[in-house]
């Protein structure tokens, strides 16, 4: 792998930029691997990278049914932050945020991580109380959180509707300045390139259609490109955890739902922080290209359609326009959906499964992009050693039977309420 650098770019300028290698190989599957990771999203690729980098396990394949990053990695609204209320969550996500901060250097790939601040708006006294409580919890854990007055919010985002007639009055906010956005495709490409350089086989157009289990232990996978043996198999398929676990006869505390996002035509910089809301479900940010990226609620019933309901889009657009009236002037250019793995406490599952050698990383709901490096790091440790990373220990599958769920929204086993 030739390193990307300013010098290499300059050298290329003299030779027509013809010296670049392909970013990762396109290998044929081998007969067997020490570890197979199913799913070439950001999480699967980062898992493979840390398996090779941290644990020295290089006989690894990532099997992706389509193209890498074509799942939720390439469909999300790219928000990265660690300001969750529950300690298990904010500790884990803050570990991930630390890895985001060094990711471009680590991977020698510009993932355009942009810590432009992630701000929650408060629309009532009770919103502000819960933001203050959350902020206190974060500060006690050494995680940055800043409560903002109404005037501070207005200064940060002058285009917010602060008038007395505003549909959603703004009482103040809470910002995590280290939060922000990243270029989602680049995250998949960067991890794929770095993993490939360490010897990992990134195999696209290779769908896993069966799991080979012998004597209670996983022995390999069946794929659209033939059977492949494996010492260990890690499921990491975002919205498809249900069907893939079913290949081993396992039912999970997960339900698939559709989540949508959309983007407007590109405009000059108008919103330079990420805006979220404590009581609405709408997030607004501006991409580096200029488009305003908006997301809303899941459809709230099981779906693998990757095509959401228009009323969800309408609701998100109505809320966004009420918050930032200037957005009503912009044309929407694209909308799309992803299938999310809604877990029954809203928290991820990084866990062993009842079949030896088979592991699960899933249940990221609508919030797993920000976890990408931490998720891969912790899952690699589980796959390499069989024991969970301490920060991922609260996210084992056994928590549901033990009554030790990590439930940020407090709605129990009802993903349609989440």
């Amino acid at each position: 792998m030739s390193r990307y650098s300013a010098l290499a770019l300059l050298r290329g300028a003299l030779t027509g930029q013809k010296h670049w290698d392909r970013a990762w190989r396109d290998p044929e599957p081998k007969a067997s691997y020490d570890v197979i990771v199913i799913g070439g999203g950001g999480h699967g690729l980062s898992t493979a990278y840390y398996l090779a980098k941290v644990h020295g396990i290089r006989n690894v394949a990532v099997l992706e049914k389509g193209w890498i990053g074509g799942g939720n990695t390439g469909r999300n609204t790219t928000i990265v932050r660690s300001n969750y209320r529950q300690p298990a969550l904010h500790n884990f996500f803050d570990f991930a945020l630390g890895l985001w901060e060094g990711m471009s250097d680590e991977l020698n790939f510009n993932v355009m991580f942009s810590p432009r601040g992630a701000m929650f708006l408060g629309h009532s006294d009770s919103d502000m109380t819960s933001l203050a409580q959350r902020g206190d919890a974060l500060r006690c854990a050494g995680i940055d959180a800043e409560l903002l007055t109404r005037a501070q919010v207005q200064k940060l985002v002058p285009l917010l509707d602060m008038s007395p007639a505003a549909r959603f009055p703004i009482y103040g906010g809470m910002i995590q300045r280290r939060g922000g956005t990243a270029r989602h495709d680049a995250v998949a490409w960067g991890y794929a390139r770095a993993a490939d350089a360490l010897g990992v086989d990134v195999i696209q157009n290779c769908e896993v259609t069966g799991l080979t289990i012998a004597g209670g232990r996983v022995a390999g996978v069946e794929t659209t490109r033939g059977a492949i043996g494996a010492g260990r198999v890690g499921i990491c398929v975002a919205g498809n955890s249900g069907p893939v676990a079913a290949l081993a006869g396992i039912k999970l505390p997960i339900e698939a739902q559709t989540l949508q996002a959309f983007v407007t035509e590109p405009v000059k910089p108008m919103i330079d922080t990420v805006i979220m809301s404590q009581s609405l479900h709408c997030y607004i940010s501006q991409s580096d290209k200029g488009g305003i990226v908006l997301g809303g609620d899941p459809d709230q019933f099981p779906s693998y359609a990757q095509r959401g309901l228009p009323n969800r889009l309408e609701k998100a657009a109505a809320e966004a326009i009420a918050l930032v009236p200037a957005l009503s002037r912009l044309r929407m250019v694209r909308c799309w959906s992803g299938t999310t793995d809604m877990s029954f406490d809203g928290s991820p599952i990084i866990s062993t499964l009842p079949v030896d050698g088979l592991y699960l990383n899933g249940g990221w709901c609508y919030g797993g992009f920000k976890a990408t490096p931490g998720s891969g790091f912790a899952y690699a440790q589980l796959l390499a050693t069989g024991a969970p990373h301490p920060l991922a220990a609260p996210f084992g599958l056994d928590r549901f039977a033990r009554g030790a769920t990590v439930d940020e929204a407090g709605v129990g086993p009802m993903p349609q309420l989440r």
Partner: protein
Amino acid sequence: MLSIDCPHCGPRAQSEFAYDRTLDAIVPLAMPPAEAMRALYTRANPRGWSDELWHHRFGCRAWLVVRRHTVTHAIESVIGYAP
């Protein structure tokens, strides 16, 4: 949006209905606790046909069993739920 043909009210927009859970997640009172936990906390989560409990919340308020395809959203049948 789906069109759901309520046996009492006829075809109505999905926004009148609320999805509740899949049929395999209904927990009768007499169910042993371990089994009830399993029913509450796991799902087949099929990529295909699924039997689901829906509530005609802003209509006749009946509970209905909707057999629906989770990829195409096609609805095969809607019948009243009899526990």
